[in-house]
C-alpha cells in the first residue's frame, strides 16, 4: 500500500489552509471534524467539483487538471449525503453515468442491484416509491455503474435512521473490499469512522490537525483539539 493515488500539495482555498497529504491505493480514509472545518470542501476537490485557489493535486502521479474532467469524475465516484436520484425508474438512474459516454451494457443492471443488495424486481420501480435507505442504495449503484477506482462519500448515512445506516455501512464495506476501491469518507460519526475506516484525517479550521490510524486517534488523541472533539 505504498503507491499514492492522490497527492495534495499546499492546497489552499477560502476554507482550507495549505493542506499537504497523500491518499494511498486501497486505503479507507475517514475525514472528520467539526462543522465548518472544510470536510466537504476538501472532498469536492478530489473530483474537481471545486478547484483550490492555490496548490497542486495529483491523481496517479499526474496533475488532476490534465485529465478530461468527465473521465476523472467517472474514475473518482462520489456519493452525496442525499440520494439526489433523477426522476424516473431505478434503471434510468443506474444507466445514467455509462449512457453519457455510450458505454451502458443492459446486463450490468442486475449486477449493480446485486452489489447494493436490492432485488431485481426493483429495476423498473419509480425512484419516488423507494424508502430513504433504498434510494441511497440506488444512488450508490449509480455511482458504481461508472466502475470508479476511488469512492468519495459525503456523510452518506447521516440522513438515515440508525438501522438503515448500518445496512448501508455493511453494503459499503463489502463493496469497497470486493472491488478494491480506495475510499475517502466524510463523517461526523466517530463510531462509524472507527467501524469503516483505517486511517483518519482530523480536520479543523481548514487544517489537518491529526493524521493517523483511526483507532489510535480515537484512543490516544495527540492534540487538544481532537481530545475536545472526542469529548463533545
Amino acid at each position, binding site marked *: 500500500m505504498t503507491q499514492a493515488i492522490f497527492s495534495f500539495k499546499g492546497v489552499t482555498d477560502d476554507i482550507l489552509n495549505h493542506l499537504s497529504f497523500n491518499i494511498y491505493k486501497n486505503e479507507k480514509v475517514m475525514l472528520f471534524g467539526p462543522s465548518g472545518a472544510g470536510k466537504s470542501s476538501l472532498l469536492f476537490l478530489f*473530483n*474537481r*467539483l*471545486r*478547484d483550490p485557489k492555490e496548490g497542486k493535486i495529483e491523481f496517479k502521479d499526474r496533475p488532476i487538471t490534465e485529465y478530461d*474532467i*468527465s*473521465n476523472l*469524475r*467517472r474514475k473518482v*465516484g*462520489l456519493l*452525496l449525503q*442525499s440520494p*439526489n*436520484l*433523477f*426522476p424516473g425508474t431505478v434503471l434510468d438512474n443506474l444507466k*445514467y*453515468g455509462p449512457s*453519457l*459516454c455510450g458505454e451502458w451494457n443492459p446486463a450490468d443492471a442486475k449486477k449493480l442491484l446485486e452489489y447494493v443488495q436490492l432485488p431485481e424486481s426493483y429495476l423498473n420501480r419509480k425512484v419516488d416509491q423507494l424508502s430513504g435507505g433504498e434510494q441511497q442504495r440506488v*444512488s450508490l449503484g*449509480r*455511482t458504481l455503474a*461508472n466502475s470508479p477506482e476511488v469512492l468519495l462519500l459525503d456523510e452518506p448515512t447521516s440522513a438515515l435512521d440508525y438501522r438503515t445506516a448500518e445496512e448501508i455501512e455493511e453494503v459499503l464495506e463489502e463493496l469497497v473490499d470486493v472491488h478494491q476501491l480506495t475510499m475517502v469518507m466524510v463523517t461526523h460519526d466517530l463510531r462509524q469512522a472507527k467501524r469503516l475506516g483505517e486511517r483518519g484525517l482530523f480536520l479543523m479550521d481548514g487544517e489537518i490537525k491529526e493524521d493517523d490510524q483511526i483507532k489510535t486517534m480515537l484512543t490516544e488523541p495527540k492534540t487538544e483539539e481532537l481530545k475536545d472533539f472526542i469529548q463533545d
Partner: protein
Amino acid sequence: MEPEVSNQSLLFLIVFVLVPLTLSYYYQLGMNKDIVWSAIRGTVQLFVVGYILTFLFDLNPFIGIPLMVSIMIVIATLHARNKGKELPNVFAVILLGLITVEGSVLALWLAFDMIEFRPSEVIPMSGMIIGNSMVAMGLALERMKSEFTENSGRLMAALSLGAKPNQASHLIITKTLNAALIPNVDRLKTIGLVQLPGMMTGLILGGVEPVMAIKYQLVISLSIFSSVSLSAMFITMAMYRYFFNKNDQLLESEEELRTQSK
C-alpha cells in the same frame, strides 16, 4: 353604432378604483397609496401613449415603426433583465432574443399578408408580441434560477457522474420550458370560452364584424403562442451555461455567478 366613452363616463371609472381602495382600507392592507398611485399613473400613461400613437400613426411607416418597436424592445429588455440581474450578459441575451422573436414574427406577418406595414397595425400587434415575450423571458429566468437552487444536489450528482453542463441541466431545461409553455397551452384551450380576448373585444366594440375580429385574434393569439415558446427556449438555452464555470463546476452563490461564469 359608433362606440363612444364620454369624458363624463370616464369620471365614473373612479368607482372601480374605490372598490379595491375600500377593501384595502377596511382590511388594513396598507395598499391605499399604491392603489391610488397606480390608478393615476396608469391613466396618465395610457393618455400619453394615446397621443404618442396618434403622432406615430401619422409618421412615415419606415420611421415610425422602427422607432416605436426599438423603444418597446429596449424598455422590455430593461424590465426583464431585473429577473436575472446576477447573471452575466443577461441584458444582451434578452435584447437579442426580443429582436429575434419580434423580427421573425413581423417577417411572417408581412410575408403572408396577415397585416399591412402600417404603424396602426404593426405597432399594437408588435407591442403584444414584445410584452408577452418579455413576461415569458422573465418567468423563464426566475424559474430557471429557482430550479438550479432546488436541484443543486442533483446537478452535483450528475456532474460527478461525468455529465457535461448541458447534460446535467437537461432536467432543469425541461422543467423551465414546461413551466413557460403550460399556461399558454391552457390559455389557447379556453380562448373565447372563458373570456373573449382583449384584441377581439376591442375590434368588436370598434364596430368590426365578429368573424373578422376572430381572424385578427387568431393571428395574434397564435403569434403570441409561438413567440412565447421561442422566447422561453431562447433565454433558457442561452443562459443555463452561465450557472457553470469553464471547468464544468456548478456556481451557486451570486458572487460566483457574477465572477466565474463561462
